[in-house]
C-alpha cells in the first residue's frame, strides 16, 4: 500500500510543476501560429517549384530573349533581401498599386497571400539555380538522343532532361525548402500571424525570454529536420543510375 501511494504522489506534483514552468504558453495559440507557418511554407514551396522550373527552362532555352529574362530575373531577385521583397508586396503592390490578391475586404487574407507571392518570387530564383545545376549533370547525349528521335524542345526538356535533373537535385532542394521554412518568419513584417509574430508578441508580454525562444526554435526544428531527412532518403531512392 505504501509503495503504491508513494508512486501516486509525484504525478500531481509534476503536473503542478509543468503548469508553473509553462504557464506563459497559456492563452496563446501556438499550434495555430505554426499552422500558418506550415501553410505559408507549403503554398510557397509549390509556387516556387512551378515558377522556378519555368525560369530554369527559360535559362536553358534556345531563345535569347527568354534566356536573358531568366538570367536577369535570377540575378536581380536573389540579390535583394527577402524583407525588402515582402515589404514591397505590401507597400508597393498592395497599398500603392492596389493589388488586393482577391481579398480586398479581408486584410489578414490579403497579407497572407501577398507574403506567399513574395516568398514565391524570392525562392523561385534559388529553385531555378538548383535545377539548372541539376540540368548540367544530365549528359548532353541524353538531350541529343531525345532530339534525334524527333522530340521538340519542350518535350526534350519535360520528358528527358528535367526528370533526370530533378532526381539529382533533391538534396539541394531540401536546402531550399528548409531555408524557405525559416524565411516565412519574414512574413511577420507585414503582419501575417505566423509563428515568428506570435513569438514577438509573447516576448513582449511574458518574462521567460529564453524559454519562449527555445520553444519556437524547437518548433522550427520539428518542421525542418524531418524535411531534410525525408528528402535525403527520397534523393537516394530516385537517383538515376548511369
Amino acid at each position, binding site marked *: 500500500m505504501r509503495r503504491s501511494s508513494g508512486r501516486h504522489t509525484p504525478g500531481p506534483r509534476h503536473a503542478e510543476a509543468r503548469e508553473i514552468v509553462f504557464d506563459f504558453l497559456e492563452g496563446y495559440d501556438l499550434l495555430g501560429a505554426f499552422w500558418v507557418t506550415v501553410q505559408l511554407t507549403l503554398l510557397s514551396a509549390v509556387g516556387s517549384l512551378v515558377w522556378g522550373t519555368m525560369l530554369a527552362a527559360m535559362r536553358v532555352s534556345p531563345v535569347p530573349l527568354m534566356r536573358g529574362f531568366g538570367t536577369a530575373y535570377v540575378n536581380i531577385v536573389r540579390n535583394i533581401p527577402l524583407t525588402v521583397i515582402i515589404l514591397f508586396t505590401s507597400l508597393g503592390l498592395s497599398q500603392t498599386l492596389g493589388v488586393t490578391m482577391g481579398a480586398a475586404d479581408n486584410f489578414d487574407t490579403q497579407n497572407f497571400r501577398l507574403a506567399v507571392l513574395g516568398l514565391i518570387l524570392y525562392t523561385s530564383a534559388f529553385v531555378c539555380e538548383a535545377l539548372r545545376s541539376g540540368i548540367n549533370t544530365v549528359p548532353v*547525349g*541524353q538531350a*541529343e*538522343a531525345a532530339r*534525334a*528521335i*524527333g522530340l521538340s524542345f519542350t518535350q526534350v526538356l519535360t520528358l*528527358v532532361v528535367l526528370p533526370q535533373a530533378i*532526381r539529382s537535385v533533391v538534396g539541394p532542394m531540401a536546402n531550399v525548402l528548409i531555408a524557405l521554412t525559416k524565411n516565412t518568419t519574414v512574413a511577420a513584417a507585414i503582419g501575417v500571424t505566423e509563428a515568428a509574430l506570435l513569438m514577438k508578441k509573447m516576448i513582449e508580454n511574458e518574462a521567460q525570454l529564453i524559454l519562449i525562444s527555445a520553444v519556437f526554435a524547437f518548433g522550427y526544428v520539428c518542421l525542418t529536420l524531418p524535411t531534410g531527412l525525408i528528402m535525403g532518403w527520397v534523393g537516394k531512392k530516385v537517383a538515376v*543510375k548511369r
Partner: protein
Amino acid sequence: MTEVSVAKDDVPATGDLVVLKSVNKHFGALHVLQDIDLTITRGEVVVVIGPSGSGKSTLCRAINRLETIDSGDISIDGKPLPQEGKALARLRADVGMVFQSFNLFAHKTVLENVMLGQIKVRKADKKVAEDKARALLDRVGVATQADKYPAQLSGGQQQRVAIARALAMDPKVMLFDEPTSALDPEMINEVLEVMQQLAREGMTMIVVTHEMGFARSAANRVVFMADGRIVEEAVPDQFFSNPRSDRAKDFLSKILHH
C-alpha cells in the same frame, strides 16, 4: 491498273535519299568539313572511315542537324534540312541515329526507351507502341531485358536497344556514329550482326566506323575522309585492295598490317 500500282509498291523507290552539296563547317579556326559533296541513294549502305579528327562524326551529326553547318546544302528525301523548330523535329524523326555512347534515356526502362518516340512523336496508341517495341527488342535480341534500366545492361545490349529505339520511328535512313567504339571487343559482334541484318533488309545506312570487316562485308560504298575532305570513294573491294590516294594507302597500311 492494279497490277501496275502493286508492282510500284513492291519495288523500293530509287533515287537520292541524302544529298550533301558543298557543305562547309568550322570549329573556330578548324575547318572540319571542307566542300563535302556526297549523295546516298535509297537502300545504300555507306561506310565512312578515316583517321580521328577527319570530320566523319561531324558529317554524320550534320545530317540530322545535331551540328549546324556554315554553308552548303543538305537535303533528305528531296527536302532541304529545316533550320529549327517543328519541321526539324519532324525530319529528325525520319532519320534514325545511333550514338557511340548509346545515350539511352537513363530514367526510363528499356521498353519505355523504345516506346517514347512512338507515343510522343508518332502519336501511336500505347498498346500498339508497346507491341512494336517488344517486337523490335526481340529482333535485336534483348527482349528479355525489356523491364530493366539501361545501366543494368551491358554495352552491347544497350547499343542494340538504341538501334531498336531508332528503328521504332520507321526511319528512312539510319546514321551510325561509331556504334562499336565504346564497346568491349566481345560485344562488338553482337551489334555488328544486328547492323548486318539491317543492311540485308535494305535499310539505307550511313555508318561511321573503324570496323573494316563490317565495311568489307556490308557496305555498298566506302567513303574515306581525311582532314575534313572526302579523299576517296569506292566499292569496298576496290578500296581495300587497291586504294588510289596516298592518304588512304597510308591509313590502310597502319590499320591492316598488325
